[in-house]
Protein backbone atom coordinates (compact mmCIF):
# COMPACT_ATOMS: atom_id res chain seq x y z
CA UNK A 1 0.00 0.00 0.00
CA UNK A 2 1.55 3.30 -1.06
CA UNK A 3 1.51 6.32 1.21
CA UNK A 4 1.72 10.05 0.76
CA UNK A 5 3.07 12.54 3.31
CA UNK A 6 1.31 15.84 3.25
CA UNK A 7 0.55 18.77 5.53
CA UNK A 8 -2.46 21.06 5.65
CA UNK A 9 -2.50 24.86 5.78
CA UNK A 10 -1.79 24.76 9.53
CA UNK A 11 1.26 22.55 9.13
CA UNK A 12 -0.46 19.42 10.53
CA UNK A 13 1.00 16.51 8.62
CA UNK A 14 0.23 12.83 8.19
CA UNK A 15 1.27 9.80 6.15
CA UNK A 16 -1.88 8.41 4.56
CA UNK A 17 -2.64 5.66 2.05
CA UNK A 18 -3.75 6.38 -1.47
CA UNK A 19 -5.08 4.59 -4.53
CA UNK A 20 -5.51 5.64 -8.13
CA UNK A 21 -9.15 6.11 -9.10
CA UNK A 22 -9.44 3.70 -12.01
CA UNK A 23 -11.35 4.00 -15.26
CA UNK A 24 -14.04 1.30 -15.47
CA UNK A 25 -12.69 -1.75 -17.31
CA UNK A 26 -13.54 -1.90 -21.02
CA UNK A 27 -16.07 -4.54 -22.17
CA UNK A 28 -14.83 -8.11 -22.57
CA UNK A 29 -14.17 -9.15 -26.18
CA UNK A 30 -15.72 -12.44 -27.35
CA UNK A 31 -16.00 -14.52 -30.51
CA UNK A 32 -18.44 -17.44 -30.82
CA UNK A 33 -19.06 -17.28 -27.09
CA UNK A 34 -15.37 -17.50 -26.16
CA UNK A 35 -13.25 -14.80 -24.62
CA UNK A 36 -10.56 -13.48 -26.93
CA UNK A 37 -7.42 -11.55 -26.01
CA UNK A 38 -5.03 -9.33 -27.92
CA UNK A 39 -1.55 -10.82 -28.45
CA UNK A 40 1.56 -9.96 -30.40
CA UNK A 41 2.75 -12.32 -33.08
CA UNK A 42 5.41 -12.45 -35.80
CA UNK A 43 4.34 -11.25 -39.25
CA UNK A 44 7.71 -11.22 -41.01
CA UNK A 45 11.23 -12.55 -40.64
CA UNK A 46 14.35 -10.43 -40.94
CA UNK A 47 14.52 -11.22 -44.68
CA UNK A 48 10.88 -10.30 -45.31
CA UNK A 49 10.60 -6.70 -44.17
CA UNK A 50 10.16 -3.88 -46.65
CA UNK A 51 13.80 -2.83 -46.25
CA UNK A 52 15.09 -6.37 -46.74
CA UNK A 53 12.89 -6.97 -49.81
CA UNK A 54 13.91 -3.63 -51.31
CA UNK A 55 17.57 -4.49 -50.77
CA UNK A 56 17.20 -7.96 -52.28
CA UNK A 57 14.85 -7.29 -55.19
CA UNK A 58 15.12 -3.55 -55.77
CA UNK A 59 12.76 -0.77 -54.72
CA UNK A 60 9.98 -1.97 -57.02
CA UNK A 61 9.71 -5.54 -55.83
CA UNK A 62 6.07 -6.08 -56.86
CA UNK A 63 7.08 -8.57 -59.56
CA UNK A 64 8.94 -10.67 -57.02
CA UNK A 65 5.83 -10.75 -54.82
CA UNK A 66 3.73 -11.99 -57.75
CA UNK A 67 6.19 -14.66 -58.83
CA UNK A 68 6.93 -15.99 -55.37
CA UNK A 69 6.32 -15.35 -51.70
CA UNK A 70 9.49 -13.56 -50.61
CA UNK A 71 7.50 -11.63 -48.01
CA UNK A 72 6.51 -14.80 -46.11
CA UNK A 73 8.70 -16.82 -43.80
CA UNK A 74 6.61 -19.92 -43.13
CA UNK A 75 8.85 -20.89 -40.22
CA UNK A 76 8.16 -17.68 -38.38
CA UNK A 77 4.90 -16.07 -39.46
CA UNK A 78 2.11 -16.47 -36.93
CA UNK A 79 4.47 -17.44 -34.10
CA UNK A 80 3.13 -15.93 -30.88
CA UNK A 81 5.49 -13.66 -29.01
CA UNK A 82 5.73 -14.33 -25.32
CA UNK A 83 8.77 -13.33 -23.31
CA UNK A 84 11.42 -11.24 -25.02
CA UNK A 85 14.47 -9.27 -23.99
CA UNK A 86 14.98 -5.74 -25.21
CA UNK A 87 18.18 -5.15 -27.19
CA UNK A 88 19.60 -2.05 -28.84
CA UNK A 89 20.63 -1.85 -32.48
CA UNK A 90 23.46 0.51 -33.42
CA UNK A 91 23.30 3.00 -36.27
CA UNK A 92 24.09 0.20 -38.74
CA UNK A 93 21.25 -1.97 -37.47
CA UNK A 94 23.56 -4.45 -35.72
CA UNK A 95 22.92 -5.69 -32.19
CA UNK A 96 24.87 -3.64 -29.69
CA UNK A 97 27.18 -5.89 -27.65
CA UNK A 98 27.85 -3.31 -24.94
CA UNK A 99 25.74 -0.88 -22.97
CA UNK A 100 24.91 2.25 -24.98
CA UNK A 101 25.33 5.76 -23.65
CA UNK A 102 22.03 7.19 -22.46
CA UNK A 103 21.36 10.84 -23.19
CA UNK A 104 18.39 13.10 -22.74
CA UNK A 105 17.01 14.90 -25.80
CA UNK A 106 14.85 17.97 -25.37
CA UNK A 107 12.30 18.77 -28.08
CA UNK A 108 10.48 22.06 -28.55
CA UNK A 109 6.74 22.39 -29.17
CA UNK A 110 7.49 22.33 -32.92
CA UNK A 111 9.00 18.84 -32.54
CA UNK A 112 12.54 20.04 -33.29
CA UNK A 113 15.38 18.80 -31.10
CA UNK A 114 16.73 21.70 -29.04
CA UNK A 115 19.30 20.14 -26.78
CA UNK A 116 21.06 16.93 -25.79
CA UNK A 117 22.39 16.56 -22.28
CA UNK A 118 23.30 13.95 -19.70
CA UNK A 119 20.14 12.55 -18.12
CA UNK A 120 19.12 14.14 -14.85
CA UNK A 121 17.39 11.82 -12.42
CA UNK A 122 14.33 13.24 -10.74
CA UNK A 123 13.55 11.67 -7.37
CA UNK A 124 10.00 11.14 -6.09
CA UNK A 125 8.72 13.55 -3.44
CA UNK A 126 5.40 12.15 -2.25
CA UNK A 127 6.54 10.32 0.87
CA UNK A 128 9.66 12.14 2.00
CA UNK A 129 10.62 13.82 5.26
CA UNK A 130 9.38 17.13 3.87
CA UNK A 131 5.64 16.72 3.26
CA UNK A 132 3.69 17.99 0.30
CA UNK A 133 2.17 21.21 1.53
CA UNK A 134 -0.84 23.40 0.86
CA UNK A 135 0.09 26.39 -1.26
CA UNK A 136 -1.78 29.67 -1.34
CA UNK A 137 -3.16 28.74 -4.76
CA UNK A 138 -6.85 27.96 -4.42
CA UNK A 139 -9.31 27.66 -7.26
CA UNK A 140 -13.06 27.32 -7.40
CA UNK A 141 -14.00 23.93 -8.84
CA UNK A 142 -15.48 25.48 -11.98
CA UNK A 143 -12.35 27.59 -12.56
CA UNK A 144 -10.14 24.52 -12.21
CA UNK A 145 -12.23 22.65 -14.80
CA UNK A 146 -11.86 25.57 -17.20
CA UNK A 147 -8.07 25.85 -16.76
CA UNK A 148 -6.68 22.33 -16.47
CA UNK A 149 -7.12 18.90 -17.99
CA UNK A 150 -7.08 16.48 -15.04
CA UNK A 151 -5.93 13.18 -16.40
CA UNK A 152 -5.36 11.24 -13.20
CA UNK A 153 -6.99 11.16 -9.77
CA UNK A 154 -5.55 9.87 -6.50
CA UNK A 155 -7.88 9.11 -3.61
CA UNK A 156 -6.47 9.60 -0.12
CA UNK A 157 -7.54 6.89 2.28
CA UNK A 158 -7.59 6.89 6.09
CA UNK A 159 -6.01 4.04 8.04
CA UNK A 160 -7.34 4.76 11.53
CA UNK A 161 -9.62 7.06 13.46
CA UNK A 162 -7.10 9.89 13.64
CA UNK A 163 -6.40 9.94 9.92
CA UNK A 164 -10.15 9.66 9.27
CA UNK A 165 -10.75 12.80 11.34
CA UNK A 166 -7.91 14.59 9.56
CA UNK A 167 -8.99 13.68 6.03
CA UNK A 168 -12.73 14.09 6.64
CA UNK A 169 -12.10 17.52 8.12
CA UNK A 170 -10.07 18.63 5.12
CA UNK A 171 -12.64 17.25 2.68
CA UNK A 172 -15.40 19.11 4.52
CA UNK A 173 -13.62 22.46 4.53
CA UNK A 174 -12.72 22.22 0.83
CA UNK A 175 -16.24 21.07 -0.10
CA UNK A 176 -17.86 23.92 1.81
CA UNK A 177 -15.54 26.43 0.11
CA UNK A 178 -16.17 24.77 -3.31
CA UNK A 179 -12.40 25.01 -3.80
CA UNK A 180 -9.39 22.98 -4.81
CA UNK A 181 -6.04 23.73 -3.21
CA UNK A 182 -2.71 23.24 -4.99
CA UNK A 183 -0.19 21.02 -3.18
CA UNK A 184 3.52 21.68 -3.63
CA UNK A 185 6.57 19.58 -2.83
CA UNK A 186 10.21 20.08 -1.92
CA UNK A 187 11.82 22.60 0.40
CA UNK A 188 10.21 25.51 -1.44
CA UNK A 189 6.80 23.86 -1.13
CA UNK A 190 6.17 24.73 -4.79
CA UNK A 191 7.66 21.81 -6.71
CA UNK A 192 5.40 19.61 -8.83
CA UNK A 193 4.49 16.19 -7.46
CA UNK A 194 6.63 13.25 -8.64
CA UNK A 195 5.37 9.76 -7.73
CA UNK A 196 8.38 7.67 -8.77
CA UNK A 197 11.97 8.25 -9.85
CA UNK A 198 11.97 10.09 -13.19
CA UNK A 199 8.18 9.99 -13.22
CA UNK A 200 6.09 12.65 -14.80
CA UNK A 201 5.82 15.84 -12.71
CA UNK A 202 2.21 16.64 -11.90
CA UNK A 203 0.42 19.65 -10.53
CA UNK A 204 -1.85 18.23 -7.83
CA UNK A 205 -5.00 19.93 -6.58
CA UNK A 206 -6.78 18.56 -3.53
CA UNK A 207 -10.58 18.36 -3.77
CA UNK A 208 -12.93 17.27 -1.01
CA UNK A 209 -16.52 16.06 -0.85
CA UNK A 210 -18.55 14.92 2.11
CA UNK A 211 -21.83 13.07 2.55
CA UNK A 212 -22.51 12.93 6.29
CA UNK A 213 -19.78 10.82 7.82
CA UNK A 214 -18.61 9.66 4.38
CA UNK A 215 -16.01 11.61 2.45
CA UNK A 216 -13.81 11.75 -0.64
CA UNK A 217 -10.45 13.51 -0.55
CA UNK A 218 -9.15 13.47 -4.10
CA UNK A 219 -5.85 14.67 -5.49
CA UNK A 220 -6.64 15.80 -9.03
CA UNK A 221 -3.50 15.61 -11.16
CA UNK A 222 -2.82 17.65 -14.27
CA UNK A 223 0.09 18.12 -16.65
CA UNK A 224 -1.87 19.94 -19.31
CA UNK A 225 -3.49 23.34 -19.40
CA UNK A 226 -6.50 24.13 -21.56
CA UNK A 227 -4.84 26.54 -23.94
CA UNK A 228 -3.95 26.82 -27.59
CA UNK A 229 -0.55 25.80 -28.88
CA UNK A 230 1.91 28.67 -29.10
CA UNK A 231 0.65 30.38 -25.95
CA UNK A 232 3.31 28.97 -23.61
Amino acid sequence: MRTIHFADANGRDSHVSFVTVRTPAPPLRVAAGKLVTMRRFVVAGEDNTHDALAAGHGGDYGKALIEGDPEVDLELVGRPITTTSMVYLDGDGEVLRFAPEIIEAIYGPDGGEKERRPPQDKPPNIDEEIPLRFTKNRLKRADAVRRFAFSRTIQLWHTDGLTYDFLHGLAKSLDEADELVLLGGGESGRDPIVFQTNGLPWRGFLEGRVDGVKYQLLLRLSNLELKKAGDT
Partner: protein
Amino acid sequence: MPKGIVVAHDGTVSSFQIEKVERAKLYGARRRLAVDQKGRTCARAALTDDGQVLLRAGMTAQGWFDSDGRQIEQKAIGAEDADGNPLDLVPSTLGVEQPLEGPIAATEVLDLSLTAVYRIAPEQIDDTLAASLAAGEFWRFPFNYRPDYRSETGYLVQNADGIFALVGVPAPAEFLEPQAPPPLADDDDDDDDLDFEMM
Protein backbone atom coordinates in the same frame (compact mmCIF):
# COMPACT_ATOMS: atom_id res chain seq x y z
CA MET B 1 -13.42 19.06 -44.44
CA PRO B 2 -13.08 16.40 -41.71
CA LYS B 3 -16.10 15.54 -39.62
CA GLY B 4 -16.38 17.27 -36.28
CA ILE B 5 -18.65 17.53 -33.27
CA VAL B 6 -22.33 18.19 -33.95
CA VAL B 7 -24.65 18.74 -30.99
CA ALA B 8 -28.24 19.88 -30.60
CA HIS B 9 -30.13 21.40 -27.69
CA ASP B 10 -33.85 22.27 -27.86
CA GLY B 11 -33.76 21.64 -31.60
CA THR B 12 -30.92 24.06 -32.31
CA VAL B 13 -27.77 22.59 -33.82
CA SER B 14 -24.19 23.66 -33.14
CA SER B 15 -21.17 22.22 -34.92
CA PHE B 16 -17.43 22.40 -34.29
CA GLN B 17 -14.20 21.38 -35.97
CA ILE B 18 -11.84 19.57 -33.62
CA GLU B 19 -8.08 19.72 -33.02
CA LYS B 20 -6.46 17.48 -30.43
CA VAL B 21 -4.60 19.25 -27.63
CA GLU B 22 -1.30 17.50 -27.04
CA ARG B 23 1.14 18.12 -24.25
CA ALA B 24 4.20 17.91 -26.52
CA LYS B 25 2.77 20.64 -28.78
CA LEU B 26 2.28 22.95 -25.80
CA TYR B 27 5.40 22.36 -23.75
CA GLY B 28 7.75 20.26 -25.87
CA ALA B 29 8.97 16.88 -24.72
CA ARG B 30 11.91 15.05 -23.24
CA ARG B 31 13.08 11.64 -24.39
CA ARG B 32 15.84 9.39 -23.12
CA LEU B 33 17.79 8.05 -26.05
CA ALA B 34 20.44 5.36 -26.32
CA VAL B 35 23.35 6.31 -28.61
CA ASP B 36 26.15 4.14 -30.01
CA GLN B 37 29.88 4.92 -29.95
CA LYS B 38 29.50 7.18 -32.98
CA GLY B 39 26.73 9.17 -31.33
CA ARG B 40 24.01 7.69 -33.53
CA THR B 41 20.62 7.00 -31.97
CA CYS B 42 20.10 3.29 -31.30
CA ALA B 43 16.89 1.55 -32.30
CA ARG B 44 15.19 -0.90 -29.98
CA ALA B 45 14.51 -4.50 -30.94
CA ALA B 46 13.35 -7.61 -29.09
CA LEU B 47 15.12 -10.93 -28.78
CA THR B 48 12.89 -13.96 -28.21
CA ASP B 49 13.52 -15.86 -24.98
CA ASP B 50 15.14 -18.75 -26.88
CA GLY B 51 17.57 -16.26 -28.47
CA GLN B 52 16.65 -17.48 -31.96
CA VAL B 53 14.71 -14.55 -33.40
CA LEU B 54 15.58 -10.88 -33.41
CA LEU B 55 12.38 -8.89 -33.80
CA ARG B 56 13.02 -5.59 -35.52
CA ALA B 57 10.51 -2.83 -36.27
CA GLY B 58 7.90 -4.06 -38.74
CA MET B 59 8.26 -7.74 -37.88
CA THR B 60 5.39 -7.99 -35.40
CA ALA B 61 1.70 -7.24 -35.26
CA GLN B 62 -1.15 -7.60 -32.81
CA GLY B 63 -4.19 -9.75 -33.26
CA TRP B 64 -7.08 -11.34 -31.41
CA PHE B 65 -6.66 -14.95 -30.26
CA ASP B 66 -9.02 -17.33 -28.49
CA SER B 67 -8.06 -19.56 -25.58
CA ASP B 68 -7.05 -22.33 -28.01
CA GLY B 69 -4.47 -20.04 -29.61
CA ARG B 70 -6.43 -19.58 -32.84
CA GLN B 71 -6.36 -16.13 -34.41
CA ILE B 72 -9.80 -14.60 -34.82
CA GLU B 73 -10.73 -12.15 -37.55
CA GLN B 74 -11.70 -8.68 -36.38
CA LYS B 75 -15.17 -8.92 -37.95
CA ALA B 76 -15.97 -12.04 -35.88
CA ILE B 77 -15.30 -10.29 -32.58
CA GLY B 78 -18.02 -8.83 -30.41
CA ALA B 79 -18.19 -7.69 -26.82
CA GLU B 80 -20.18 -8.40 -23.69
CA ASP B 81 -20.67 -6.71 -20.37
CA ALA B 82 -19.58 -8.10 -17.00
CA ASP B 83 -22.87 -10.06 -16.76
CA GLY B 84 -22.33 -11.75 -20.12
CA ASN B 85 -24.88 -9.69 -22.03
CA PRO B 86 -23.89 -8.92 -25.63
CA LEU B 87 -23.12 -5.28 -26.40
CA ASP B 88 -23.90 -3.36 -29.57
CA LEU B 89 -21.16 -1.53 -31.42
CA VAL B 90 -21.53 2.20 -30.78
CA PRO B 91 -20.82 4.08 -34.02
CA SER B 92 -18.55 7.10 -34.28
CA THR B 93 -20.33 10.31 -33.34
CA LEU B 94 -18.19 12.51 -35.61
CA GLY B 95 -20.43 14.44 -37.96
CA VAL B 96 -23.54 12.95 -36.36
CA GLU B 97 -25.92 15.11 -34.33
CA GLN B 98 -25.79 14.27 -30.62
CA PRO B 99 -28.05 15.46 -27.79
CA LEU B 100 -26.52 18.14 -25.61
CA GLU B 101 -27.38 18.23 -21.90
CA GLY B 102 -26.63 20.88 -19.37
CA PRO B 103 -25.61 22.96 -17.65
CA ILE B 104 -23.58 20.31 -15.79
CA ALA B 105 -21.98 20.59 -12.35
CA ALA B 106 -18.20 21.03 -12.20
CA THR B 107 -17.99 18.00 -9.90
CA GLU B 108 -19.30 15.76 -12.69
CA VAL B 109 -16.66 17.05 -15.10
CA LEU B 110 -13.95 16.50 -12.48
CA ASP B 111 -15.06 12.86 -12.19
CA LEU B 112 -14.23 12.22 -15.85
CA SER B 113 -11.41 9.78 -16.51
CA LEU B 114 -9.90 11.77 -19.35
CA THR B 115 -8.87 10.11 -22.62
CA ALA B 116 -8.54 13.11 -24.94
CA VAL B 117 -8.79 16.89 -25.04
CA TYR B 118 -9.81 18.77 -28.17
CA ARG B 119 -9.75 22.46 -28.87
CA ILE B 120 -12.84 23.03 -30.96
CA ALA B 121 -13.70 25.80 -33.40
CA PRO B 122 -17.37 26.66 -33.90
CA GLU B 123 -18.72 26.41 -37.46
CA GLN B 124 -22.14 27.36 -36.22
CA ILE B 125 -23.14 27.83 -32.60
CA ASP B 126 -26.47 28.33 -30.92
CA ASP B 127 -26.62 31.77 -29.27
CA THR B 128 -27.93 30.28 -26.03
CA LEU B 129 -25.11 27.74 -25.90
CA ALA B 130 -22.52 30.39 -26.74
CA ALA B 131 -23.78 32.61 -23.92
CA SER B 132 -23.87 29.71 -21.47
CA LEU B 133 -20.30 28.61 -22.28
CA ALA B 134 -19.08 32.21 -22.06
CA ALA B 135 -20.70 32.40 -18.62
CA GLY B 136 -18.58 29.43 -17.55
CA GLU B 137 -21.15 26.65 -17.71
CA PHE B 138 -20.45 23.08 -18.85
CA TRP B 139 -22.39 20.86 -21.26
CA ARG B 140 -22.37 17.10 -21.77
CA PHE B 141 -22.77 15.05 -24.97
CA PRO B 142 -22.04 11.48 -26.15
CA PHE B 143 -18.73 11.20 -28.01
CA ASN B 144 -17.00 8.36 -29.84
CA TYR B 145 -14.09 9.20 -32.10
CA ARG B 146 -14.32 5.76 -33.73
CA PRO B 147 -16.82 2.89 -33.42
CA ASP B 148 -16.40 1.05 -30.12
CA TYR B 149 -18.35 -1.10 -27.70
CA ARG B 150 -18.08 1.57 -25.05
CA SER B 151 -19.41 5.07 -25.54
CA GLU B 152 -17.37 7.93 -24.16
CA THR B 153 -18.67 11.21 -22.78
CA GLY B 154 -17.66 14.69 -23.85
CA TYR B 155 -17.98 17.99 -21.98
CA LEU B 156 -17.87 21.44 -23.54
CA VAL B 157 -15.80 23.96 -21.58
CA GLN B 158 -14.79 27.51 -22.49
CA ASN B 159 -12.00 29.80 -21.29
CA ALA B 160 -10.09 32.76 -22.72
CA ASP B 161 -8.22 30.45 -25.11
CA GLY B 162 -11.34 29.07 -26.73
CA ILE B 163 -13.80 26.22 -26.43
CA PHE B 164 -12.56 22.75 -25.48
CA ALA B 165 -14.10 19.28 -25.48
CA LEU B 166 -12.96 17.09 -22.61
CA VAL B 167 -13.55 13.45 -23.53
CA GLY B 168 -13.40 10.34 -21.38
CA VAL B 169 -15.26 7.83 -19.26
CA PRO B 170 -17.07 8.85 -16.06
CA ALA B 171 -15.15 7.38 -13.11
CA PRO B 172 -16.47 8.73 -9.81
CA ALA B 173 -14.56 7.72 -6.69
CA GLU B 174 -16.30 5.95 -3.84
CA PHE B 175 -17.21 7.74 -0.63
CA LEU B 176 -15.29 6.38 2.34
CA GLU B 177 -16.99 5.57 5.63
CA PRO B 178 -15.12 5.68 8.97
CA GLN B 179 -14.87 1.86 8.93
CA ALA B 180 -13.85 1.60 5.26
CA PRO B 181 -11.54 -1.38 4.68
CA PRO B 182 -8.00 -0.60 3.55
CA PRO B 183 -7.60 -0.01 -0.18
CA LEU B 184 -6.47 -2.78 -2.49
CA ALA B 185 -2.87 -2.69 -3.69
CA ASP B 186 -2.30 -0.06 -6.34
CA ASP B 187 -0.18 -0.25 -9.50
CA ASP B 188 1.10 2.94 -11.00
CA ASP B 189 2.18 3.62 -14.53
CA ASP B 190 5.46 5.34 -15.18
CA ASP B 191 5.87 8.14 -17.64
CA ASP B 192 8.78 10.13 -18.84
CA ASP B 193 7.61 13.38 -20.34
CA LEU B 194 8.91 16.73 -19.23
CA ASP B 195 7.12 19.54 -17.51
CA PHE B 196 7.91 22.96 -18.98
CA GLU B 197 6.81 25.07 -16.06
CA MET B 198 3.17 24.84 -17.03
CA MET B 199 2.10 26.93 -14.07
